[in-house]
Structure formats: structure tokens, C-alpha cells
């Protein structure tokens, strides 16, 4: 670390992100446990309804490596990727915005020796922790329903965290540009098409080629494809591309959020 970087860290951190994390756990303890548990059911309901209900009408589809797989096995990993994305985006946008503007929570934290960097690290950690719990639960459901056919499916849990990190880091940087709750609505509006078209519910081969290229540029598609390959333990060159996409996105997101940190928290 150069002297400049070191002094930037010193100005924005007391190295005590741990206290922010402690607070997060205390809040979870105070929270109504039904609310926490309910988050687990959301992707499960999707999987049951779409995978088995709609699956009856669809039958089998082409899975990784060209092998036919049941529709439920096709969407299950995609739903895990989507739920990792949704959780991370919610925590890093709505949640951060609410605590910043409405609950004034960060105002209180930043009046102590904590710096914006501590707050950001603590909050992203908590988002990843929640993501980890839900990923664990959903992976167990996938396994119990017999939709994962490889031990590699276990790797879906850390990959879910990587996906969450990428979206959380980016989401926090984007939040620094927002000033009203109404603007936040646009985040959901932007996420809906990404969810629908990123090979979550149907393969992108149904689209004309230019549209396919566009979808392939979007992050969720890479997350979905990566998860799908892990669920059956089928790997090819593209696996590395998907993984690389998220590593780069996470690094870029962290760099971006770091740049915007002072604009976000210190006004």
C-alpha cells in the first residue's frame, strides 16, 4: 500500500468494522424470527410452482453439455443465483438508502470513531451472511428434491456469495447517486427484465442472436450459467469465463463503491 492509500484508509476507517457486524447480529437476535425464516421460502415456492407445476407442461429441456434434464433441475440453480442477486441488491440499495436517509442509522455510527469504510464493510458482510444462510437452505432443498446430481453442487454456496458480493458492491455505489425513494423504484424495474431473460426460466437460444449477445453481457446470465454447470458438475471453458466475470465485477464494484464512499456517507 502506498502512503496515499494508507492515509485514505486511515481517514475513512478505524479498523472496527467488527462493531458494525456485532450490531447486525444483535439486530437479527431482536428480529422476529418468522421474518428471517420467511425469506427462505421465496425461492422454494418459485421452484415448486414453476419447476413442478409448469414443469409438467414442459417436460425436459436441454441442460449443460447438451444433456436433457427435467425443467425443475433446469431452473433450480438459476433461482439460487437470482435469489443471491435479489438479496444483495435489496441489502445494498433499499436497505442502505433507508438507514441513511430515513432511520439516520449511519449518521449515528459515523459520529463515533467509525469511518465510512467500516460501515460499508460491516454492511456488506451482513448482506453476505444473510445470503449465505439462504443459499445453504436452498441448496439443501435442491439436494433433497434430487435436482442436484453432483457433489459440485456444494460449490453453489460459495458461488452464491460471490454473486452476492458482485451485486452488493455495485448496488452500494449506485445508491450513492440516489436522492429519493421514488428513484429506487427504478432499480426493481431494471432487475425484472434481467431476471426474466437471463436464461433463468428458458434458454436464451429462443432469442435472435443480437439479443443473445446483449443478455450474455448481463451479470445474472453468467451467474445462472455458472450455477447450472455446478449443479450437474459439467465444466467447460465458459465456466472460467463466468467465474472470471464475477471476480472482475466484484473487484470493480468494490473499487467503484470505494470511490463513492465519501459521496454516499459524508454530505
Amino acid at each position, binding site marked *: 500500500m502506498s502512503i496515499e492509500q494508507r*492515509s485514505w484508509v*486511515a*481517514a*475513512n*476507517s*478505524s479498523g*472496527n468494522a467488527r*462493531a*458494525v457486524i*456485532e*450490531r447486525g447480529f*444483535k*439486530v437479527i437476535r*431482536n*428480529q422476529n424470527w418468522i421474518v428471517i425464516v420467511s425469506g427462505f421460502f421465496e425461492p422454494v415456492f418459485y421452484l415448486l410452482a414453476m419447476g413442478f407445476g409448469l414443469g409438467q407442461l414442459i417436460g425436459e429441456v436441454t441442460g449443460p453439455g447438451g444433456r436433457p434434464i427435467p425443467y425443475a433441475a433446469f431452473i433450480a440453480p438459476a433461482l439460487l443465483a437470482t435469489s443471491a442477486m435479489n438479496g444483495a441488491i435489496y441489502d445494498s440499495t433499499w436497505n442502505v438508502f433507508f438507514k441513511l436517509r430515513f*432511520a*439516520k*442509522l449511519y*449518521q*449515528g*455510527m*459515523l*459520529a*463515533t*470513531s*467509525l*469511518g465510512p469504510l467500516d460501515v460499508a464493510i460491516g454492511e456488506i458482510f451482513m448482506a453476505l451472511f444473510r445470503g449465505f444462510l439462504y443459499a445453504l437452505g436452498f441448496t439443501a432443498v435442491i439436494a433433497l428434491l434430487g435436482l442436484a446430481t453432483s457433489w459440485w453442487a456444494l460449490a453453489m454456496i460459495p458461488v452464491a456469495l460471490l454473486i452476492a458480493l458482485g451485486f452488493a458492491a455495485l448496488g452500494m455505489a449506485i445508491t450513492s447517486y440516489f436522492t429519493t425513494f421514488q428513484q429506487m423504484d427504478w432499480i426493481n424495474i431494471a432487475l425484472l427484465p434481467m431476471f426474466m431473460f437471463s436464461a433463468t426460466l428458458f434458454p436464451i437460444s429462443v432469442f435472435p442472436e443480437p439479443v443473445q449477445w446483449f443478455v450474455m453481457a448481463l451479470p445474472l446470465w453468467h451467474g445462472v450459467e455458472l450455477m447450472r454447470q455446478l449443479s450437474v458438475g459439467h465444466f467447460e471453458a465458459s465456466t472460467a469465463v463466468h467465474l472470471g466475470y464475477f471476480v472482475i465485477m466484484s473487484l470493480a464494484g468494490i473499487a467503484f463503491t470505494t470511490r463513492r464512499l*465519501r459521496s454516499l*456517507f*459524508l*454530505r
Partner: protein
Amino acid sequence: MRGLSRSALSVAVDKVSRVPVIEARDLTKVYGELRAVDAISFEVASGESFGLLGPNGAGKSTTMRMIGGTSLRTSGTLLVNGLDPEVNGPEVRANLGVVPQTDNLDGELRARENLVMYGRYFGLPYSYLNPKADELLAFAQLTEKAGEKVDNLSGGMKRRLTIARALVNEPRVLLLDEPTTGLDPQARHILWDRLFRLKEQGVTLIVTTHFMDEAEQLCDRLIVIDHGRIVAEGSPPTLIRQYATREVLELRFGSERNGTLVDQLRDLGRLEVLPDRVLLYTDDGEAALAAVHHRGLVPVTSLVRRSSLEDVFLRLTGRSLID
């Protein structure tokens, strides 16, 4: 109360050393077109009780936030305990206790947890914080409410909890942004008493307020801010002596007539005409009132009082502080 405050004041003044806790030079904050704080310079000595007085929107809160390093200044220099809060934020804030204008307690934690967690943000250990939290709850008269959700506390209780929270790290400097706004008169006096005790211990107090009585009670010295600029500086008695007279005669003739009588009163002293009343600045209020009556002018109501910082502010800006 007044007798006590004078003696407390003299004790505290003895403890004032000449090392400045805060040094601001041409401190400026610009939001878009608005110059919220416009090149202000001031110093606060250790142990001093320093006030920032001004109407809403004058730039007081912004100045406070810049001192804590939670708002970035546009230009100028600022040192707190010899450190720049933008460069050494964590070190600067470790010496500060901040009471913001609006309470920002952690609604997801209970009353006592608010104190403990806040202490954790300073990196303080539980062995220190657990007894400290109980002491502070007692200080804020909230011992029975320790396990209560913050949402269920009354406005006054929340304010007291916020003030207790600011003391958790035993700060040498306490920043109080309108500490008693929204408190009932009894609660205000209790709070002032607590602040005096801290001051006696040598804690530096920096208070923003638009309450004159508060500034007169709490501050050794103050600056009057308007539109982001300092318009006067000094101790409350000095400012009153300098910008007002000993007494003020308040006359109400009814809103229609207040403005029309100016010429008939002009020679009795300096006049301020407000929509609802006329203020006549004089050293002898009773004599002036007699003179008014003598001229055959009969106010609906009249009042002779000692002049206050409110009058100073009116004199300096032509506007009353709370509008």
C-alpha cells in the same frame, strides 16, 4: 439557579487552558448554489463552553458536522485537537461526543443496547461498557426503560438517551446541536444542570441553539451566525452591552397601529417594529412607559424586561431568531 450557574461558570473559567480544541480558518461549505457556511473563523479553548447562535438554516448544524468530519468542507482549514477531521476522522471523533439535532437512535436495538453498541463503535470493551451503560441510564433517568424498544420511548426520553449515548466514550468535547429543542421546561433545566457538571469536570461544550436563555445559561462565549457568516462574537453579557440597552419596553398597540406610531415614539430610544409589537430600547423601561402614557398613547399591553440575546440578534440582522 442563576447563583449556581455563576459560580459554576467561574470554576470552569479557571480550568480553561489556552490550548485551542478547535481552530477554524475561513471554513466554507457550499451546497450547489447555497453557501451554507461562508468563510467563518473561530477558536474554542479547552474547557470552554462555546455557543453557535443563529436562526434555522444559518449554517450551525453544518459547522458541527464538519467538526466531526461527517460533512466534507468545501474550503478553509479546520483542526480539532490539532488534527484535521477529514484526514484523521476516527482519531478526532474518538474525543467527541455528538448530540445531533434530530435523534438518530438505533430503532432496531433496545434502549440499553443503544448505549452499549454505540460504545462498541468506539472500540470500547464490554467490561467497560456494561457498567457504563447502567450509569448512563441512571444519569438519563431511564433505568426502568433499559429493555424498551426505542420506538416506545417518549420524545423527551429519546432526547435524554441520545445525550447519554454521546457520553459513552467519556469525550473531552461535547457537540450539542440544539440539545433542548422539544424538551419541556423541567427537562431542559435538568439537562442544563447535567451539562454544568460536565463543564465543571473540564469538558468542552459546543452548543448550537436558537434559544436565547439556553445560550445565556450555557455559553461562556458565542458567535452569532446568519446566512453562513459570523455577525458578532463575545460573551453573552458583552454582546448585550454592546448591541442592546439594559432594558426593553415591549408595547402592543394592535397590529394595525404598531407601525403608525413610530414617529411619536422615535425620540424615546431605539425602536424595532415587529408585526405584533414595538420594542423600545432604553436603560429605564418604567420611565419610558410613563413617557408613552404621558403622550396619550395607550398600548393594549406593555411589558418591561431585561434585554437578551434575542435583542442582540434582532439588532444585528433585523430579524427575530425564531420565525
